[in-house]
Every structure is written in structure tokens, then in C-alpha cells.
């Protein structure tokens, strides 16, 4: 019971936070939907663990808990990959900026 309540509260807080971020436009609609679905799914599975067993059967995985674990891992790997790619892009953009500044403000002898 304790863990159910705890996770539900966390999920609720995260969802409230996500709505705020969507309003401030720091979240795009796609990210918002993915993020919200993830936490709603988590909240549902905590209260009705049998759902994970149904999902597990559909995916031909033995136990519900295993299904949750596998799906979480896939999601985490995907997010990690995307973050790394984003970070790389950001690095390259920063370099372009540094380059433009360096060329625009060429040093002169004093």
C-alpha cells in the first residue's frame, strides 16, 4: 500500500510539473504526451499489477514484472540515445557560435 501511494504521489507531481512545462512551452506536445503516458501507465500498473501480466502475455514474456523491466529498459536506452544525439548537436552549435564570434572579433595589435 505504501509503495502504491508513494509512486502515485510522485506520478501526480510529475504530471502537474509536465502540464506547467507544456504551458511554458519548455515541453513540446510530443514530449508531453510521451512523458505523461509513461507516468500514467506507471500509476495504473502500480494499482493494478495484473495489467502488466496481460501485457507480458501479449509480448510472450513470462511475468508482468519482467515486461515492465524490459519496456523500461528500452525506453531508457532510447531516451539516452536521443539525449546524446541532442547534446552532440548542441556542442556543434556552440562551436559554430564560438567560431562566428572569434572571426567577428579578430584580435588587433595594441
Amino acid at each position, binding site marked *: 500500500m505504501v509503495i502504491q501511494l508513494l509512486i502515485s504521489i510522485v506520478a501526480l507531481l510529475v504530471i502537474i510539473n509536465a502540464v506547467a512545462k507544456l504551458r511554458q512551452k519548455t515541453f513540446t506536445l510530443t514530449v508531453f504526451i510521451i512523458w505523461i503516458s509513461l507516468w500514467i501507465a506507471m500509476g495504473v500498473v502500480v494499482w493494478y499489477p495484473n495489467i502488466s501480466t496481460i501485457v507480458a502475455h501479449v509480448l510472450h514474456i513470462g511475468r508482468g514484472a519482467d515486461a515492465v523491466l524490459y519496456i523500461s529498459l528500452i525506453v531508457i536506452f532510447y531516451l539516452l540515445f536521443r539525449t*546524446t544525439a541532442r547534446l552532440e548537436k548542441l556542442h556543434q552549435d556552440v*562551436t559554430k557560435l*564560438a*567560431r562566428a*564570434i572569434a*572571426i567577428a*572579433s*579578430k*584580435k588587433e*595589435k595594441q
Partner: protein
Amino acid sequence: MNETTSINPSVPAMYTSVWVVIPAYNEQRGVREAVQQVQRYIPNVVVVDDCSKDHTSDEALKGGAHVLRHPINRGQGAALRTGMDYALQQGADIIVHFDADGQMQPEQIPHMIQPVIRGEADIALGSRFLTQKSNIPPLRQMILKGGILFTRIISGLDLTDTHNGFRAMNRYAAEKIHIVQDRYSHASEILDEIAKHKLRYVEVPVTVTYSDEAMAAARARGQNSFNAIKIAGRVIWGKLLS
């Protein structure tokens, strides 16, 4: 070194559209001398100070170079690209990559640019292994041989030395070669670009001096033999992402 910074009158006129790009990070001890020595052969030198913590920019200016300074440290690859962009803007026909740490010999620049000037190649790459003069420490030699194998597998280029920073290229090559890897993986990246754009390349024998000072400078920049493994990882990772 007490020579004047004035340009040597014996510099051939055709060298006036040659630009030497020197990336520099915390090289205040050697950069002025490097610039002055290079200018004995090539008048146009641009030093890209990669946000050094010392007086690299001032020293390079005193040496008589054009000086660009990154507002934040972006790595040697990024600094090279900045210098190349600037040189291209200034109308460079030939661009030379050179280091400020005293490992390379300025008197070899005319040899480097010869195949490019004669139109035999789009890019000339310095090689330490076409001559016996370089005194390369054994561990470094082993790592470099590994780099050769790595390059042959990844980009299919047949080279004797894949991580030599001494290069000369024409404008066409300079415009084609994109360096997106900011740190030291750019050496592999340049080779990839050569393969991708089917640039005509040639190796030119160069001597590299591994003085204690040069090695210490390299270490200060975080460049040591074990980094080679890290670089290989980055190259593969970069390929996965692109």
C-alpha cells in the same frame, strides 16, 4: 629567437595566397617563435587561440600573426575549422595546418604545398614513416600503427601515417572538408572526408621532433597515447549518430 617579423623578400609571389593555420591552446612559450619561423616561408599566418588561459593571443600577435580567439574552449578540430573559414574568407588558395608546439619543421612547408601547387593532389598529408628521421617513442609508434589499421578499415585510405597534423590543401579540399568533431578525433574525420569526397591525396615525408618540451605540451593539452582508444570510440560513435 630575435629575428624581425618582417616578411622575407625571397618568399615566392605565389605563396601570397597560401595561409598557415595554427591552432593554439596554452602555447604562450612557443607560439611567437613558431609564427615567426613560419613567416620566413609563408607570410599569411592565422593563429586560433582556443580560449587559452595564458597569453597565447598576445604572443601570437607579437609574432605578427592574424589572431582569432574562441570565447570558450572548443578543441583543436574546432580551432582548425575556424582558422580555415577565416583563411577562405581572406581568399586563400592553399591552406596549411601547422602546430605551435615545435614538433613540426617550418622549412618543410614549401615541400608540403608543392604537390598541391602543382595540381597533383587536393591535399598533402605529412607522414613520419616515409622517412627515418623522426625519433618516435616505441609506445607512440605502436599506437600510431594501430591508427593506420583503423583508418584502412574505416575509410579505406592507404596511408603510412594517419595522425599527423601537418597538412596542406587547396581551396576545393578546404571547402569540402567538414570538421564536426571538435576534439582530437578530427584527424580521423579529415581522412573520412578525403575518402567521402574522393579528394586526391598524397603523402609527403616530414620530420617530427618529439622533444621533451613538445611531449610535455601535448600532455598539458590532455593528449597522450591512451587517448587514442578514446578517439577511436568517438569516431565509431560519431558514425553511429550520423
